[in-house]
């Protein structure tokens, strides 16, 4: 990890007491986490057979350990995502030819429903480590990874593409090596965007960790000890109290994660903001202050920090310089042609693979039917986003224009966005069952249960950022009612709204896979749609149908993005920007 380098210089160690209260607290924090971590990781190395003998306990006392296991999975996924981000993003930004392929691929990966290919990855990783828990663990981590990595990578790539020209020239004219340039310029510059996207990813990730801890593919049912498994056991045993406990546990974890990891990270990353002038007050974090103040943290972390800084400074370069004529031939136009031909060839082969694989089981009639199912889900997503917008935009504006209320409620909205809605599904299902409602209609709201908050907190952010002088101008001209809404505030929050709605709609497509089929004990409710099609194909381990379902859903998501969100985005950034 990086370390705040100023921390060592601001205070004089000689004039401080030997042990401070901060140190005691820090000691407990460090070693407590250490102990928990060791316990959590040990259990991943046992064989599956052993794990299956220990059923998931519904006692609330088992929850802290399950919560820890879930948290560790999240952590592993975020580390994997970071490594992937650095490698993939850097490659795409630096090689023109790689960019040609990697960026469209990333764009598509972004719109593939994560839960859809969970079944593939579970199978893949289980075959990789036959009979061992680690295989299943890796499948779960991989699922979370796929929900996080893409937008982090995009953010990193975008930053690398928009490096300030003068800083790039400085690094080149001082002849920094590629290694130094990466750690001194590229990574720091992309840090604020990366931290923000990591946070967003993380908040989306809780949903998938819960979904991936309990999954059945054909005859294999996997239950990894964790909150997700706890919830699914509670559902199977119709234990509403246990579901309540898991909601509580989740609340606590998200809170801890936010306070211990993201607050400090955001406060620390503030120094990487590129604007040179001091603007809004910098974000603060008590944990970061603690880290800076406690001896112990410094004792433990400063060698690590200087090791890292030393490594970042090393003038590493490739030992064999590439001869001039080789690099020229590599960059030449005929090579471009060769490359393009290769890419097209591989793409055609891939298409043939998919079509022939799907065609082993599925005929044209069914393809059309799946497209129809996709249309049903599309209608659900569209209607729900519209309804959520009608509710949350006015609420968000109301909150955002009142700074005190906004300060109090904004963290709540962000928190709700992070909360995995699938944990509270059972409550809704119980209601539907009890009142005998039509699942085709009443299961739908579940899709947007967790994602609507993105609309809310983005609109709050937009309304809080709305310039005061424009508010004053509007009131001095007595703009009121519809005129005020349509001429003043809605255009003002529109760019923020689009960001929120885009995230919400992407999340809802994903959620459809778990929301269109829901169960309570032995009762299973089912709504007609693409989500339930994929979910049922997964349970049946029907891989051609899973492939078809995912492909169609990806196409829908992409079409939806291209025809609706992207034009709105361009419009917002061109016409409605306030800065």
């Amino acid at each position, binding site marked *: 990890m990086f370390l705040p*380098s*100023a921390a060592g*210089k*601001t205070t004089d160690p000689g004039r401080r007491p030997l042990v401070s209260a901060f140190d005691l607290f820090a000691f407990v924090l460090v070693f407590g986490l250490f102990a928990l971590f060791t316990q959590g990781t040990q259990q991943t190395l046992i064989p599956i057979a052993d794990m299956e003998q220990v059923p998931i306990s519904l006692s609330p006392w088992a929850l802290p350990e399950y919560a820890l296991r879930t948290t560790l999975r999240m952590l592993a996924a975020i580390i994997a995502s970071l490594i992937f981000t650095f490698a993939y993003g850097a490659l795409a930004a630096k090689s023109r030819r790689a960019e040609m392929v990697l960026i469209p691929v990333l764009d598509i990966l972004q719109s593939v429903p994560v839960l859809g290919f969970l079944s593939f990855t579970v199978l893949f990783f289980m075959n990789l480590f036959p009979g061992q828990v680690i295989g299943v663990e890796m499948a779960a981590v991989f699922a979370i990874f796929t929900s996080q990595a893409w937008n982090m990578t995009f953010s990193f790539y975008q930053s690398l593409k928009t490096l*300030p020209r*003068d*800083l790039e*020239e*400085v690094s*080149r*004219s*001082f*002849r*920094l*090596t590629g290694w*130094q340039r990466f750690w*001194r*310029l590229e990574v*720091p510059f992309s*840090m604020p965007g990366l931290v923000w996207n990591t946070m967003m990813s993380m908040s989306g990730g809780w949903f998938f960790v819960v979904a991936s801890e309990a999954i059945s593919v054909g005859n294999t049912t996997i239950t990894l000890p964790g909150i997700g498994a706890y919830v699914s056991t509670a559902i199977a045993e119709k234990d509403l109290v246990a579901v309540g406990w898991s909601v509580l546990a989740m609340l606590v974890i998200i809170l801890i994660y936010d306070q211990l990891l993201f607050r400090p990270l955001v406060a620390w990353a503030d*120094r*990487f*903001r*590129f*604007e*040179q*002038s*001091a603007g809004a007050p910098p974000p603060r974090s008590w944990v970061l202050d603690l880290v800076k103040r406690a001896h112990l943290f410094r004792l433990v972390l400063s060698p690590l920090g200087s090791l890292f800084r030393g490594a970042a*400074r090393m*003038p590493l370069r490739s030992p064999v310089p590439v001869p001039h004529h080789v690099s020229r031939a590599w960059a030449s136009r005929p090579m471009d042609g060769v490359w393009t031909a290769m890419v097209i060839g591989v793409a055609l082969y891939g298409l043939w693979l998919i079509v022939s694989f799907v065609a082993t089981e599925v005929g044209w009639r069914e393809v059309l039917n799946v497209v129809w199912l996709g249309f049903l889900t599309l209608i659900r997503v569209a209607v729900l986003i519209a309804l959520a917008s009608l509710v949350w935009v006015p609420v968000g504006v109301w909150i955002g224009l009142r700074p005190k209320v906004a300060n109090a409620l904004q963290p709540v909205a962000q928190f709700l966005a992070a909360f995995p809605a699938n944990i509270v599904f059972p409550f809704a299902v119980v209601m539907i069952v009890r009142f005998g409602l039509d699942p085709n209609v009443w299961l739908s709201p579940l899709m947007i249960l967790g994602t609507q908050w993105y609309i809310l907190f983005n609109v709050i952010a937009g309304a809080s950022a709305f310039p005061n002088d424009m508010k004053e101008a509007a009131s001095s001209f007595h703009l009121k009612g519809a005129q005020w809404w349509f001429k003043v505030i809605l255009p003002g929050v529109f760019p923020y709204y689009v960001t929120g709605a885009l995230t919400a709609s992407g999340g809802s497509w994903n959620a459809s896979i778990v929301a269109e089929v829901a169960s309570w004990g032995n009762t299973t409710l089912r709504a007609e749609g693409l989500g339930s099609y994929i979910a049922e194909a997964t349970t049946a381990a029907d891989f051609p149908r899973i492939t078809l379902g995912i492909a169609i859903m990806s196409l829908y998501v992409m079409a939806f993005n291209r025809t609706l969100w992207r034009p709105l985005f361009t419009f917002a950034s061109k016409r409605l920007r306030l800065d």
Partner: protein
Amino acid sequence: MLETAASKAGTPLVEVSHVVQSFKKNDNNRFLVLDDVSLSIAEGEIVGLLGRSGSGKSTLLRIISGLVPPYAGEVKWCGEAVKGPCKGLSMVFQTFALFPWLTVLQNVEIGLEALGIDATERRRRAEQAIDLIGLGGFESAYPKELSGGMRQRVGFARALVVHPRLMLMDEPFSALDVLTAETLRTDIIDLWTDGLLPIKSILIVTHNIEEAVLMCDRVLIFSSNPGRVAHEMPITLPHPRDRLAPEFRELVEDIYARMTNRHAPGATPGQGAASHDAGLATALEPVSTNLMAGLLEELADAPYNGRADLPALADGLNLSADALFPMAETLQMLRFAEVTEGDIILTPAGRAFVEADVEPRKNQFAKQLLGHVALAAHIRRVLEERPSHRAPYSRFSEELEDHMSEEFAERTLRTVISWARYGEAFAYDEKTQQFSLEDED
């Protein structure tokens, strides 16, 4: 081409011979930025590259430093052909270009890190450079916490710490306010004349005429579109130089006069007025109509009463030469004023404009615009000829891009749109990207 004199003091540090730089416009055309530029820089001198923005002088600086390869021609650094960023050369940037996430000390050390110098030596040299440039005590500050002047001092310290033989400065003072710039400039000249800077020579790019006369031993005046070395002027005044001394003023006046005759450098002033007309291929400077009106009014009033000395006018209006030139030239193009020998003179049309009210002003502006700016007349004609009286933006931008870069074409069209809107010569709808004869709303 004008070959600049090689200096007396041995092998030149830099030799630029017949450098051409151009950017690809489309498959067949290239846009020329630098045209056959040759110069050399010897040890022990400060050389100034003086020119308007867009004259390619910053591009030349980057070619010399090895950041950008030239399209044709050759650059030699200490007798060897330049193939990439050179050793022994460092650069000071207009925007300071400091890493906001590094402290002052870390920013200064970065050049030494690349050289692989060990930590103790790195620290020693960095402290030395920081003290020399007057930054002592600010080592652990972040650039955000510093004022502009202090930031640029960090930029200087960072460039000096590697002990370069040549220091390149890309408009190092132009982002600073007048007072700060003056202090920093004086400090640098003092350090240089006292022999305290660990460098051999300085190459400075600037558009500030007084700055060039104040600092340089030799000034190369660039003409624009494409960039060429139009004049070379040795400056032999002893340091410290006095801005108010008659010899100093004379040099400044002389350079002003040379820089305003841009179409034919060195030609006798008072040439035919037709050559000021903006042809279709002329890039227009985005000078607002408010500024034009303001300048015309200022010019008509006392103490100028219709005729002003450009340096004096620039001083009086608190404008840099770089800001004044495009305004003066635009007025000349529209025949509101005449520029000769560093003077600007109000024409009868200009006087009529000043004396008129809002509506007649607009009418007269439209008349001058359509009469002397070929692009405006062309757009108007196309709109009149078409039955719909409409034409898309791309119709004209593509035409312009045959003559200039995409960026300049866009700027030129935006300028003509804003002028035409003021004169109500034709309308433009941003949403549909359409030109039309009449504004519909």
